[in-house]
């Protein structure tokens, strides 16, 4: 089952990457990042099944960090929305030069 788990995890991760590249809506991009993290969680759990409990410990940490990151990231998005009234990344281009 290890190989299959890894395969599923790789596919999910790739979908997440493609989603990040393709989308313009900041929230959707954020959610794709969460998807990537979840895929990595699956990898850890799969390894933990065969190689020891350390994998699950890592999953705990990853989830924690992911939660923290989601909170902060969404706060940033709210802050940007207040100024620009949009979450479309193409319109948030103050740094463009």
């Amino acid at each position, binding site marked *: 089952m290890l190989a299959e788990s890894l395969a599923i995890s790789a596919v999910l991760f790739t979908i997440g990457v493609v989603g990040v590249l393709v989308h313009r809506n900041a929230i959707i991009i954020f959610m794709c990042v969460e998807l990537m993290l979840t895929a990595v969680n699956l990898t850890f759990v799969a390894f933990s099944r065969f*190689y020891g409990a350390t994998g699950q410990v890592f999953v705990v940490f990853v989830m924690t960090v992911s939660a923290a990151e989601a909170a902060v990231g969404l706060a940033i998005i709210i802050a940007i929305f207040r100024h620009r009234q949009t979450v479309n990344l193409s319109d948030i281009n103050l740094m463009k030069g």
Partner: protein
Amino acid sequence: MDQHYPLFYVFHFYLFGVIAIASALAFVTRKSPVAAALWLVNTMFALAALYVMLDADFIAAMQVLVYAGAIMVVFLFVVMLLNLGHPSEIPDARGKWWKLAAAIVGLALLSMVMTISRTRLPESLVMPRDFSVTQAAKYNAVGTIARPLFNEYLLAFELTSVLLLVAIAGAVVLGRGRESNAR
């Protein structure tokens, strides 16, 4: 690694795997953020089922509670708050060349990851067959994680709690805005 699994097990493993991937695909192709978020929740659920099948019960529960129950809820909160729920009129994703390039990149990434994951891992590291089951029998599901967490990884645990504190503070600060200044 060549254990023989019952068909029941294998069938459900693949079933949940397919559900997860299909949900993820649906997730990236939605135009409405709300629909996308809900599809992502579905993906989380399928993954939780997979965790259960991989003998990680506690993690599965955490996945549902934290990811699906907390993080995605926060996402939906923000979407509702900013009134972004409508499917956008202008196309959300970028042009078709961009998509094509992204698809190629994705394929490259996928192939590379698959190749790497095929490397042979040392046999000596493999735990015995029923390891997690015996572990679980010995310590129950939570204990399996708690034991390393509070022993070897105690420092990381403490730091993570600091991280959470900082994140909370940061989120509050950032989210507060400057309405007090706008006169």
